[in-house]
């Protein structure tokens, strides 16, 4: 463990977007603001890439810690950390973020509040970069909240739409439930060990004595304290990463402008939960908490894949797809360790950013239409179609794309320890291939079904970033495996790939595509016509369309409970108000007495005015009117000196 001051330059990575944010807020012109923010992000990429380069050569995490404040002899330290986990994340976040910024500059061109939008984006980037670099649970939490606030601002950016305002609120409140778990975890960890730093020369939370303390201390339900803290942290991750049952905010977050969706769903916010689990993995080790992570992840992946199959909104399908993929990442971390989960996180970041930005381009081209039933014939937008398909095949995990390599690793890791999870993931992969194919079939071929004009290609400023992302979506996986991504992250013993895993991986992705083509081929769909799948699945399809009725269940249970609580509180409030009125009345009566007899008579008339009068009188008597006050002032000095002296001599002898 090296503690090194030479790492202080890491601070610049989150600081540069923050500076850009401040300047963008001060800027009156939207163009200037967007240029400043893009420049800020590009500038942040320089130290980020340096960090990435450096992180590959490290044997152990490097840290840079400093004391924030000292209270009651206990110092609260903050710090930044450089290890493969943070190094790769900052590189990815700045790189994808930069492309998204470029794209957004064109996409938001006509928006009057463009400067504000870019300031929010930069703030978001600050939060995310700080989050991944934090070497302290508390600092991480602070950045975590910055990310939360920024995402709230961004999702409800078009707040004149009631649905957008509601979606922002929903995202904020839902993730806050998870944050409560996170906060309790922080307090527990601090109370048990007094450490909040992750790594600090053997005294950090994730190393040496502190970790042993936590693993020895017992929590409840037969878990160790480490296990309980891990679970509480996972609750935070559930909220942020949209896992069951707190996923409901994520599809609604589609109300934000498209670059926001890409930023939130691909590179940053939702990955924060996965990152948190990866960062604190030593706490999970050897406890049943890891099983919880694996099963919650698998269940989320399965549920979301089904739900994605029933959606008609272009971006909502991608949103559920994201939920599903995040579930897979959780599974990856739980069964295969940091390397497997993070590998999938990175490859997912590239192809999902591509898909979201591509979707934005399609929506743009179709005149702000998001319903896939009213699309069709988008193949006319040749460039967009080309790159979108690149992203789609990667998401389908067609062999030799990025998605294939990373998903294959998850499957292989799961196959060894947890066959149940392995088969769940296989089904998820099958469904993934199906919903992606279904979406593409609706959108690209055939005649345009929308009411507006024919789709038109988006300008080059929007398509250029897409091509860069497409290259990564296709080739990143191969190069990463080739260059030894697993050795880079470390802590991974390469699972051998039995033939069956490879066969299943090939079969589900290609099979899913083929199955979907088979169902939809030759049948009419789109417009008002019912989906061909609903004919096969019947009632079950209605459930999928309605996202398994999660929102309705919450409305019926949580919200009802909330209303009842509100009613009870209102009644209590009324009772308290009665008491309050009584107290106020009593206080008024007392104050009346004091006012009239105490204040007026005693203090005003006797003490204050009396003193003043006596001062005046003594002044008039003793000296000229000008110096009248002065002499009494000086008398006070003398009196003070006498009293002090008496005290001092009394204390002395």
């Amino acid at each position, binding site marked *: 463990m090296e503690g090194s001051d030479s790492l202080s330059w890491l601070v610049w990575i989150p600081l540069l977007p923050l500076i850009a944010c401040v300047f963008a807020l001060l800027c009156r012109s939207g163009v200037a603001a967007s240029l400043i923010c893009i420049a800020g992000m590009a500038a942040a990429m320089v130290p980020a890439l340096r960090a990435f380069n450096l992180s590959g050569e490290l044997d152990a995490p490097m840290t840079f810690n400093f004391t924030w404040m000292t209270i009651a002899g206990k110092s609260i330290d903050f710090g930044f950390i450089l290890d493969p986990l943070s190094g790769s994340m900052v590189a990815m976040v700045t790189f994808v973020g930069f492309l998204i910024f470029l794209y957004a500059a064109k996409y938001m061109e006509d928006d009057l509040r463009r400067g504000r939008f870019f300031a929010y984006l930069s703030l978001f980037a600050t939060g995310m970069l700080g989050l991944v670099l934090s070497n302290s649970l508390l600092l991480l939490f602070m950045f975590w909240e910055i990310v939360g606030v920024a995402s709230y601002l961004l999702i409800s950016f078009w707040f004149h739409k009631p649905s957008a305002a509601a979606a922002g609120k929903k995202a904020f409140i839902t993730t806050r439930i998870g944050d409560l778990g996170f906060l309790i975890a922080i307090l527990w960890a601090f109370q048990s060990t007094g450490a909040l730093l992750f790594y600090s020369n053997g005294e950090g939370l994730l190393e040496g004595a502190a970790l042993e303390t936590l693993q020895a201390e017992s929590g409840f339900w037969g878990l160790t304290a480490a296990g309980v803290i891990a679970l509480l942290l996972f609750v935070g991750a559930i909220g942020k990463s949209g896992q069951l049952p707190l996923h409901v905010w994520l599809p609604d977050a589609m109300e934000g402008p498209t670059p926001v969706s890409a930023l939130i769903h691909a590179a940053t916010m939702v990955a924060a939960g996965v990152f948190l689990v990866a960062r604190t993995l030593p706490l999970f080790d050897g406890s049943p908490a890891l099983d919880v992570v694996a099963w919650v992840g698998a269940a989320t992946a399965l549920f979301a894949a089904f739900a994605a199959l029933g959606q008609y909104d272009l971006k909502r399908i991608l949103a559920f797809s994201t939920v599903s993929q995040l579930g897979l990442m959780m599974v990856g971390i739980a069964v295969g360790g940091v390397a497997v989960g993070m590998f999938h996180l990175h490859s997912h970041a590239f192809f999902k950013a591509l898909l979201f930005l591509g979707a934005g381009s399609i929506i743009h081209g179709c005149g702000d239409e998001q319903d896939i039933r009213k699309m069709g014939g988008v193949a006319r937008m040749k460039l967009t179609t080309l790159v979108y398909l690149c992203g789609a095949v990667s998401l389908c995990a067609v062999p030799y794309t990025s998605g294939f390599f990373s998903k294959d690793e998850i499957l292989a890791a799961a196959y060894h320890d947890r066959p149940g999870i392995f088969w769940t993931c296989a089904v998820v992969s099958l469904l993934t291939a199906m919903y992606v194919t279904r979406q593409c079939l609706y959108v690209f071929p055939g005649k345009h079904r929308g009411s507006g004009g024919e789709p038109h290609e988006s300008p080059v400023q929007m398509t250029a970033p897409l091509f860069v992302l497409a290259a990564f979506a296709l080739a990143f996986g191969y190069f990463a495996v080739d260059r030894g991504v697993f050795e880079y992250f470390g802590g991974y013993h390469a699972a051998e790939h039995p033939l069956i895993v490879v066969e299943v991986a090939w079969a589900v992705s290609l099979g899913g595509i083929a199955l979907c083509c088979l169902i939809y081929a030759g049948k009419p769909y789109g417009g008002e016509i019912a989906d061909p799948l609903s004919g096969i699945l019947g009632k079950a399809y209605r459930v999928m369309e309605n996202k398994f009725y999660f929102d309705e269940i919450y409305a019926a249970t949580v919200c009802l409970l909330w209303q009842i609580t509100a009613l009870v509180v209102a009644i209590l409030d009324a009772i308290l108000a009665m008491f309050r009125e009584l107290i106020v009345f009593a206080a008024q009566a007392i104050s009346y007495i004091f006012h009239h007899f105490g204040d007026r008579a005693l203090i005003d008339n006797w003490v204050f005015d009396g003193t003043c009068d006596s001062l005046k009188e003594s002044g008039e008597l003793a000296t000229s009117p000008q110096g009248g006050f*002065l002499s009494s002032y000086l008398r006070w000095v003398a009196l003070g000196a006498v*009293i002090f*002296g008496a005290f001092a001599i009394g204390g*002395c002898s």
Partner: protein
Amino acid sequence: MDYLTLLEATLPDLIVVVALFAALGVDYGLCQGKSPHERGRIAGEVSSIGLLLALCCLAFQWMQGSVFEIAEGQLNLDATGLAAKAIVYGLTLAVIRFATRHCPTTHASEYHALILLSALGMGFLATTENLLLAFVALELVSLSLYALVAFKTSSPQSAEAGLKYFAFGGVASAFFVFGVSYLYGATGSLDIGTWSDWSDRSTLFALGLVFVLVGLGFKVAVVPFHLWAPDVYQSAPTPVAAWVASGSKVASVFFLVKLIAALPPGPETATMIFAPLATAAIFSMLIGNLGALRQSNLKRLLAYASIANGGYLLIGLLAGSPDGYAASIFYVVVYALANVGAFGVIGLLSDRMKGDGRLEDFSGSWRRHPGLSFAFLLFLLSSAGIPPLAGFVGKYYLFYSAFDQVEMSYVLGELLSGRNGWLVFLVCLALVMSVISLYYYVLALKAFLVSEDESPHLDDDEGISPGIKLCVFALALLVLILGVYPGPFMAFLQAAF
């Protein structure tokens, strides 16, 4: 001691002296026939440049790690001493910036020269450990300030305030120098650094100490030596009021803390000064806060608030621990920053328009000067002790240092008897008084931020220069930074004792 070392040690002060004469010389040599406003501006620029150079010089000495110990503690320039001097000169710079805007008379250069002269005195007062030099420095400060307070020659109130200040200060100085003679008689030394190895504490020593405390109590404006403060703050030119409230107080507290910290340890010493200081603290908090409640003039209100703040910072001295001393200094620095800023804003918004600082004069300021009003909000909320501003952290450190000295006991009688009881009582009183203080601070803010404009005669047609605004914002930023990240500065102060 050779003269070269002396020159090296006092180089920043020499630069200030040169700037002082340069300001006078430029004014009388080159600026004849220019308008008073223009001459004031030039004198202010010259003084500012001198102060900046002095600050650079201090920074250089600090980076070199210079430690000067000259003539048995006459000047003690270690890291803390240099920092004290830098704080004083920094505050001077802010005051000079504010003073540049509007000179009350045609004697523009004397105005700035006197401020620099008092700054010199404060610099020496904050860094000396010699009682005689302290007296000389104190007189230098006082004499310059008497003249400055009475500088608004067109106003009879200003002259009256100056006269009161002078008479009061004269008596206090007499006490001080009389106390010094007793202390010299009792200990045979003027160097307070030698007290620690002197064990026989006599009545003479106690009396001398009390008299010295009277002299310093006048400077810090604690009850019952506070009576000059409201008149002076209200009637002096506003930058001068800012200067009296900040620089003079900071320097005096630095010396006061040094004096108390140098006392020979032992229970007798503790009891000897405990009762007088505790009495002063209690009455300062009471009279300061309750007095401020009744004020309708903003400057007078801040004067009473400054008396109350004097009471708070005595708590750190009463705690008697290094943490307590550091907390007192931290508090007075933070208080000075906020006060210079607040008086600066008041001066900018009211002085030139012949306003006398009544609360109504400021109604609707947020509309005309949103930035300045926001800075004013920060200054006042910091003084009221609202987190995350520096005033809150300062109060927290003060009260914590006092509680730290309370020997915890679960028997209520033991907990609340003797010194323990006093400390608990003081902290509780301070907490209650902080709540009360919020009332008048918010009252002042209400005038700024809520009330609609009712006094168009105060509308400022001439814009405020960006340099002065920058100065206000820099102060506000400092108040914020010291609140959010107080660690390093506090650790630095704690290391000094």
